[in-house]
């Protein structure tokens, strides 16, 4: 496969996530669209690591390939921590306003 198809797929997933964040007002759906964007970036990182595996084969330092995949691993670690805190905030929001509409959050005061 050429790298351009993977770039196109990742871009399509990322832009779908962006459209979801911009158009939906349910805060849980917005949060899920952010997860979708994170996954698109992960897919692109793995695809680039395999592209470098094809071009940099037989070079002195073969570790450049596993670096990108470890970055993806750390992105997943941070995403897991982020989801737990974010969902706690959404539960708190629902408890205070009895809704998950983000338009109720248009002011920080009160």
């Amino acid at each position, binding site marked *: *496969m*050429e*790298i*351009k198809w993977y770039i*196109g*797929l990742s*871009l*399509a*997933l990322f*832009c*779908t*996530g962006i*459209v*979801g964040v*911009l*158009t*939906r*007002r*349910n805060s*849980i*759906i917005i949060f*899920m669209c952010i*997860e*979708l964007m994170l*996954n698109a970036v*992960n*897919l692109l990182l*793995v*695809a680039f*690591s*395999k*592209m470098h*595996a*094809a*071009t940099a084969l037989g070079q002195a330092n*073969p570790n450049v*390939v*596993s670096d990108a*995949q*470890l970055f*993806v*691993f*750390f992105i*997943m*670690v941070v*995403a*897991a*921590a*982020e*989801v*737990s*805190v974010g*969902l*706690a905030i*959404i*539960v*708190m929001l*629902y408890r205070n306003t009895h*809704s998950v*509409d983000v338009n109720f959050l248009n002011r920080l005061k009160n």
Partner: protein
Amino acid sequence: MSITELLFWGLSVLALFSAIMVVTSKSPVHSILFLIVVFFAISGHYILMNAQFLAIVNIIVYAGAIMVLFLFVVMLMNLNAESEPKKNRLIQFAGLISGGCLFLVFISAITKSASANNLLQMGGGNFGLIKNLGMSLFKDYLIPFEISSVLFLSAMIGAVVIGKKES
């Protein structure tokens, strides 16, 4: 068309269709189930690229842990299609236009690129196996790995403090 290309296009169509359904479906539970389908399709892409460790971690962490957390929260709040806030057509149209413009700008940028036709190493290569990744993780990335445990601890404490009922 080889079997790898066939699998690539099938998984891509599945991922894109499910991603669009995540954004457009009315009920949050349906959105979550479609997002799980997206994660499985992306795991399939990882297996096609022989990144087996990431494929398994993606299924376990995302589809297994994070999406179950989302499902629990949605069921706890008893959200359904009727409680969906009513939408503004103009805002939706503007969001669609701006997302599409971003997509077109990116696409036109990569088609000019000289390395857009670089080939990927599909299937072969043992860099994505857990042995090599583990060696690299515990030799070169030991400090970030340990720091991530502190991050998890602080996230756990933060979630408990935020979610606690105020007395």
